[in-house]
């Protein structure tokens, strides 16, 4: 357990390493990490609870965390604290101490604290709290073994355990006791009575509904009357906890002279400045993009020739005697499909690493801060900016990344908007088609398309927020952690996990659908022009003709549903085979007017998300209604914009 930014994941990673398993809490979209720790002969099962500031009912993460502790009664709860921010961190400890599970405090980031001049006396802290306190520097693997030893000792009952939880402020003590008397005897197992009474006073929505069910009506009326008289009691409860924290901190912490300007403040002068901050952000993001394509592009090319190409050749050779369709299936269906997914790995690797570094350093919080002004016009939180930015790499982790948003409404809106962020796959299609029609101005066209997507994103956000959510706003409260040097281990593990989830989700789905599409294009006659797929393309022709696009272009659009880059392959197949002797690009250039090509690109950029993104959208929203809505919305928007572009381009070009 721990508040955000305390290095909890670093500790968890150190203890569990690669034995980590990332999943979901049952029935929820909150990530759950479990693992085993085998250090020095002892074996422990560890579960990483979501990082939360407190244990209220304000967010699903907090409820999940406290339900686990209360209902599953782990042997030990380890609370990771940041020594440099002890005052605020102790709030969570104040909430944990009254719970009936042994607590061990891991006092992390002692080195950062010392640099800031903050010295925490762990022994004093231990005495005052009544629970073991283990100083650590997780990033340097210091103190972790001690932590493991202490956990074991507590679990085996070897340590004298005497927690000293905070008491409520005097003015509310009577009310609390009154509530306690009223509810005792009716509190469902395994909830502790005192804790329930306190939560009722706090106005905890989950506990209040629980007790409303559990209490006989006349007792509930009394309880309710008390609660109504003390609606602001949460302030007294929080205040009481902070009073206690104040005493603990005064005993255990020595501070430097107040008023020192830390490095973080100096950097933030620029990073959070309304103008300079934005410029810095744009420059940083530009750098990430440049790096991604400058390094990733060549790597991608290498992968294509040496891995994909070699594999295809090998298959063709080995199956030269087998029926043609097997080789065709393997080369075009399997290798073609899975292969294109694999070629994205270098790009994603660099992109995710760069983003991971910025996040770990603490800069991303500033990015969210600077972008909040724009995000909140769309009813989004500044933090929505982070998953949306990940979408430039791939929409799949972008949709999954919306988990960091606390409000489910903001999460839904961000998920709906994420596919409008142009991912590398869509950009690949543009990179293929644009030079054919626009030659030297292809780069300008590409930039224009990206900007168009972002404008549509902003307008869609405004529109959807007004229509669906009545223009509600999300509260903007965000902690800005201290800047610190990135921890390579944490970043590497995170990049690894993101890549693996991309490969698993996008990869398997793309593979399966590639085979299906291949089948549709090969049946019933073996000739793509008369296949089932072609019939689907014909269905879209009426729409396509509004943009000057024929059935082949519409089919390419359709196949982009599987994976955006399939559009390239489809265009190749459809146009390559038609006029003998002419190259694909020439055939393409002859087949449509530049205005139509532009319309095609616009439609493609705004088109429905790829199958993997749709799959992840369903997984994150758990609602077919919203998933289908998202797809339809994008279909309408892309077609509409495509048609509009066509007519506009005809006038201008």
């Amino acid at each position, binding site marked *: 357990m721990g508040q955000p930014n305390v290095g909890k994941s670093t500790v968890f990673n150190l203890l569990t390493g690669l034995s980590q398993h990332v999943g979901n809490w049952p029935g929820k979209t909150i990530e759950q990490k479990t693992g085993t720790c085998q250090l020095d002969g002892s074996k422990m099962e560890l579960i990483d609870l979501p990082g939360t*500031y*407190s244990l*209220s009912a*304000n967010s699903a993460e907090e409820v999940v965390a406290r339900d686990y502790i209360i209902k599953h009664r782990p042997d030990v709860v380890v609370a990771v604290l940041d020594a*440099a*921010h*002890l*005052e*605020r961190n102790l*709030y969570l400890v104040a909430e944990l101490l009254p719970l009936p599970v042994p607590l061990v405090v891991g006092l992390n980031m002692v080195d950062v604290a010392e640099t800031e001049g903050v010295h925490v006396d762990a022994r004093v802290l231990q005495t005052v709290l009544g629970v073991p306190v283990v100083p650590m520097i997780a990033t340097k693997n210091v103190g972790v073994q001690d932590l493991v030893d202490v956990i074991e000792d507590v679990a085996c009952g070897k340590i004298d355990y005497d927690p000293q939880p905070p008491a409520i*402020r*005097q*003015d509310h003590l009577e009310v609390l006791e009154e509530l306690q008397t009223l509810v005792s005897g009716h509190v469902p197992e395994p909830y502790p009575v005192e804790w329930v009474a306190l939560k009722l006073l*706090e*106005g905890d929505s989950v506990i209040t509904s629980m007790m409303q069910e559990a209490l006989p009506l006349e007792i509930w009326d009394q309880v309710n009357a008390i609660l109504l008289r003390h*609606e*602001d009691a*949460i*302030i*007294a*409860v*929080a*205040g009481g906890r*902070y009073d206690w924290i104040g005493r603990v901190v005064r005993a255990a912490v020595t501070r430097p002279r*107040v*008023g020192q300007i830390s490095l*973080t*403040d100096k950097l*933030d002068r620029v990073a*959070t400045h*309304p103008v300079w901050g934005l410029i810095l952000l744009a420059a940083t993001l530009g750098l990430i993009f440049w790096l991604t394509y400058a390094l990733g592009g060549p790597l991608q090319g290498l992968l294509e020739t040496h891995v994909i190409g070699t594999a295809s050749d090998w298959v063709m050779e080995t199956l030269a005697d087998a029926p043609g369709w097997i080789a065709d299936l393997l080369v075009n269906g399997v290798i073609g499909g899975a292969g294109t997914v694999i070629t994205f790995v270098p790009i994603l690797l660099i992109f995710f690493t760069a983003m991971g570094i910025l996040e770990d350093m603490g800069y991303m*919080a500033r990015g969210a*801060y600077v972008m*909040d*002004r724009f995000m*909140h016009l769309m009813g989004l939180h*500044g933090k929505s900016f982070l998953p949306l930015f990940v979408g430039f790499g791939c929409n799949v982790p972008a949709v999954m990344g919306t988990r960091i948003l606390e409000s489910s409404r903001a999460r839904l809106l961000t998920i709906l908007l994420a596919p409008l962020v142009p991912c590398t796959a869509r950009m690949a299609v543009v990179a293929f088609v644009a030079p054919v029609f626009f030659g030297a101005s292809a780069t300008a066209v590409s930039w224009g398309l990206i900007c168009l997507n972002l404008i549509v994103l902003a307008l869609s956000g405004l529109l959807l927020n007004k229509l669906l959510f009545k223009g509600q*706003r999300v*509260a*903007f*409260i*965000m*902690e*800005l*952690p*201290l800047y610190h040097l990135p921890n390579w281990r944490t970043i590497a593990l995170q990049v690894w996990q993101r890549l693996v989830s991309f490969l698993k989700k996008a990869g398997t789905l793309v593979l399966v659908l590639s085979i299906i599409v291949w089948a549709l294009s090969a049946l019933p006659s073996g000739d793509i022009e008369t296949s089932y797929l072609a019939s689907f393309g014909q269905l879209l022709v009426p729409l396509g003709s509004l943009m000057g696009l024929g059935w082949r272009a519409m089919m390419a659009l359709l196949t982009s549903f599987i994976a955006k880059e399939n559009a390239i392959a489809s265009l190749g197949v459809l146009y390559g085979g038609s006029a003998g002797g002419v190259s694909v690009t020439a055939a393409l250039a002859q087949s449509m007017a530049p205005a139509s090509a532009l319309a095609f690109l616009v439609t493609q950029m705004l088109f429905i998300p790829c199958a993997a993104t749709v799959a992840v959208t369903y997984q994150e929203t758990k609602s077919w209604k919203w998933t289908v809505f998202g797809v339809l919305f994008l279909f309408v928007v892309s077609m509409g914009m495509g048609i509009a572009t066509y007519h506009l381009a005809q006038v201008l070009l």
Partner: protein
Amino acid sequence: MVPKAFGHRRRHTVHRAHSSNSTRSGEDAALRKERGQRGDQGKSVSLNSLPVGHIARVTELRGGRGLIGRLACLGFTPGARVHMLQNHGYGPLIVEVRDVRIALGRGEAAKIRVQPEGASK
């Protein structure tokens, strides 16, 4: 007699002495009234209007229960000291409370009433 003596004292050391007392929600009415009559130093203002570099103490939270619950958990309780780090008059602002830097939207900051204590050294 009280107003005159009170007014006399005001010019000297009263406000300095009081600003070092911590504000408690259970404080007695006389103290509160005294503070209220002290002119600028006694008025509680919205956190939004605290200039950069100034320090203040939280006096109350006004708003929906969910929001004030969250603010209170993060450290914005009556008596807590806040230090304004960034405030451009528009857009979100950054305050330091209980050693942590927190960015707040203007709407959220408006719900926190504070009592200014002057600029930090």
